């Protein structure tokens, strides 16, 4: 029975510093089967694949628990080289191709068939000649297998992106003894027809007896091509089902999970409504690499907490960065009806908008400076606060005022530190985030844009950060736009949740909507009606 499976992962668990990111995961794949692996960002898909490949990051952080069996034999790969030698291949999401080399050379890269020469006999096989005609014929065979009728002698540079993906695939199937092939979002960068072609190639590869693990966010693709589907959520397998019995709605619901109970967040004097819009974004385009926004229109109600969700790379992160002028953008952003000039960093601050960046250590903090400096410096520069007057009209930073303010903030936000003069480098992630929040509050913003406020922060501190955001919203009436990859977090605190897909708004959902709706919206599908 066990022999039937080429790949078996049994009870695999993995912890990072005491946090389990994988919990007793089982995954079984037969020869010739295409097995779909779906889950939200952070569900554990990449960690699972990293274990399969013996990536150094796994062993540098204490290895994993459980068992991996390949062809019935227990294996434990310590390096990606071991995995490759055992017949586990991976098609990378980023193309690892040499642009000036030909298609054939790229396919056989580092595995070239060799012809010995006197030099190589004398010194080392590394000095052998490359058998170009065999390179060509091997490459041709691999290309034919996936049905790509391209001249194998063309250089890679200048080929369409879709072809590059195919060359990656051809390289993997050319490797002798490949038993398991992993495709990580292979269609993410392809056009529809290219994607279809690739999926057809996948089926052809599977029919030669190779087991394929197919990771994708496009649920309909997964359903149409896979034999079986495993759904991961929060590091656990929530379902393994034959694809024929799965529906997209069901998969979406499984991915997102049960409803998280929403605590009572407190009442407001005036409930936010569409009659009172504070921020109006129309046709916003932002050129943020990897998080492009492609024409977004969205209105933010005064006094609400608006959640912005969506999968990684779909552009949700780009929105706030565009408004703040950090990445080049086009379109229009109006605050209280007044146009905010785009591409001019600092302008948004002047209009009462503050920003907590997802890149806390990069954009958010000056690590080698003390807490009071970090909290006050932007307010000093953009709003002229925390300054004192000297004779002759000279104004300089008022360190005393900054320290006093920092002391109050440390108390209010419960920042754990030795005092306002401690350097922020020495604080924990959660406390650094609180310093960022204090800095944003020092600007006394009407609208606060918050991106990934709980990323890289331990569980206890996460709760505190979210509570802090809620209390700022309820007590001070601050409008908060919360961008997060964690849907559960968005559903806990937001009034409305906008889901972004492919740089555009798909839908605005209520936190109480069913899981399926969220799952579908994140896959780019709007559900009409209730």
């Amino acid at each position, binding site marked *: 029975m066990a022999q039937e499976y080429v790949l078996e992962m049994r009870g695999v668990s993995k912890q990072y510093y005491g946090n389990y990111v994988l919990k007793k995961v089982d995954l079984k794949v037969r020869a010739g089967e295409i097995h779909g692996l779906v889950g939200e960002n952070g569900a554990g898909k990449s960690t699972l694949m990293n274990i399969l490949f013996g990536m150094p990051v796994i062993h540098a952080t204490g290895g994993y628990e459980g068992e991996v069996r390949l062809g019935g034999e227990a294996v434990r790969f310590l390096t990606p080289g071991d995995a490759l030698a055992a017949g586990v291949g991976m098609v990378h999401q980023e193309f690892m191709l040499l642009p000036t080399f030909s298609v054939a050379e790229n396919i056989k890269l580092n595995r070239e068939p060799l012809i010995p020469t006197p030099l190589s006999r004398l010194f080392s096989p590394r000095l052998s000649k490359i058998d170009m005609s065999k390179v060509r014929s091997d490459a041709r065979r691999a290309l034919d297998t996936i049905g790509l009728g391209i001249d194998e002698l063309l250089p890679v540079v200048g080929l369409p992106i879709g072809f590059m993906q195919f060359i990656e695939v051809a390289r993997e199937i050319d490797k002798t003894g490949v038993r398991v092939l992993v495709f990580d979002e292979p269609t993410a960068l392809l056009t529809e027809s290219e994607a279809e072609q690739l999926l057809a190639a996948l089926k052809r590869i599977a029919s030669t007896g190779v087991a394929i693990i197919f990771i994708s966010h496009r649920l309909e693709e997964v359903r149409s091509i896979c034999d079986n589907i495993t759904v991961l959520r929060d590091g656990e397998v929530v379902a393994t089902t034959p694809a024929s019995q799965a529906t997209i709605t069901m998969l979406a619901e499984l991915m997102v999970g049960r409803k998280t109970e929403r605590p009572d967040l407190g009442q407001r004097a005036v409930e936010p409504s569409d009659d009172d819009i504070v921020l109006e974004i129309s046709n916003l385009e932002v050129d943020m690499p990897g998080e492009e926004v492609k024409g977004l229109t969205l209105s933010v109600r005064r006094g609400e907490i608006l959640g912005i969700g969506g999968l990684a790379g779909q552009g949700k992160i780009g929105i706030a960065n565009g408004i703040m002028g950090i990445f080049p953008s086009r379109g229009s952003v109006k605050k209280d009806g007044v146009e905010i000039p785009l591409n001019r960093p600092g302008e948004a601050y002047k209009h009462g908008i503050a*920003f907590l*960046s997802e890149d806390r250590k*990069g*954009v958010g903090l000056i690590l080698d400076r003390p807490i009071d400096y970090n909290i006050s*410096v932007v307010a000093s520069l*953009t709003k002229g606060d925390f300054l004192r007057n000297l004779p002759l009209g000279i104004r*300089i930073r008022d360190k005393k005022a900054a320290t006093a303010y920092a002391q109050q903030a440390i108390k209010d936000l419960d920042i754990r530190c030795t005092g306002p003069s401690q350097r922020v480098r020495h604080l924990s992630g959660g406390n650094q985030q609180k310093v960022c929040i204090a800095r944003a509050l020092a600007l006394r913003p009407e609208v606060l844009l918050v991106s990934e406020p709980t990323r890289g922060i331990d569980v206890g501190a996460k709760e505190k950060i979210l509570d802090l955001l809620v209390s700022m919203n309820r007590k001070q009436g601050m409008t908060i736009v919360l961008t997060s990859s964690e849907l559960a977090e968005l559903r806990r605190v937001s009034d409305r949740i906008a889901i972004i897909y492919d740089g555009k708004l798909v839908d605005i959902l209520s936190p109480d909507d069913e899981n399926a709706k969220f799952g579908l919206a994140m896959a780019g599908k709007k559900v009409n009606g209730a």
Partner: protein
Amino acid sequence: MSAKERVLKTVSDLGLPRLTVILFLIALFVLGAVRGVPVVDLISNSIGRFAMNAMLTLSMVPAIQCGIGPNFGLPVGIIAGLLGLVISMEFGLTGFTGLFTAMALGILLGVVFGVLYGHLLNRVKGQEMMVGTYVGFAIVSGMCMFWLLMPFKNPRLIWTLGGEGLRVTISLSDFFSNVLDNLLAIRVGTFRFPTGLVLFIAAVAVLYRLFEYSRLGTAMDLAGQNEQFARAAGISVEKMRVAGTALSTAMGALGIVLYAQSYGFVQLYTAPLMMAFPAVAAVLIGGATPRTASISNAIIGTLMFQTLLAITVPVTQSVIGGDISEIVRLIVSNGMVIYALTRGQGGGNNGS
């Protein structure tokens, strides 16, 4: 904290370079005292050299703060200062009039040169130290022609016997040598304290401290600390780098004027070629890194570096009868420069 931990912490706070220099200094002083070298002279000499060089080291601070790193292009500023000096002398100005004219001209030219140099550095981001070194070499070499060809007429400046072009070394004794040193100077026996010059440097240090707390100074420092942060706050990082470079170059010009009035001679032609290195070395010994520097780093660093140079000669002469001060100077200053280059873009202050 146990005694051992405390010692270890002190060592790591100081950093190895500083610790080495301090221990070496103490050893030299003890050795000097044992061998009967007059310690008062050593101290007097050290203070004199410190005052002479302090402004050149201080000019490193705005450069590091604005993000271009230690200003290896210091000769650009020195040339501006030298121009100020020779122009003031050409008009025959003496005393404080001559000195302040030279300073004003030097600073003015320094700002102009610095702005141009700053724009150049904006185009070679990440390689400022290397490019700066060669810009320094280039301008010094180019100016060798300039000194020779310019129509200076004052016979005390140009070659004697109807020659043309400026001399290699021009004495300031007829103009304004030591005017600032001698202002309120304290003399006790062989001990001499250049009060005027030290006060002047202190005044510049205080002014710079105020500048650091101004909005412009803060913005400049932010640009150097974290470009992305600065940009997000609406600061033009490029402009701030140009401002910092100009300030550094102008302070370099002021530095060479002070140096010359203290030394008593103006040295032209290839003399400024290597002058950036001791200044860079001094500020780094003082605890600066290629990314962070303060006025106190510059002051402490100059004090340590120049003391080292001042006392090596008499002490080693008394012991081995030879002069190894030049060797020590080269080892220390080049060693610190290598240290700076290897630290490169590495962030952080010591102990963090």
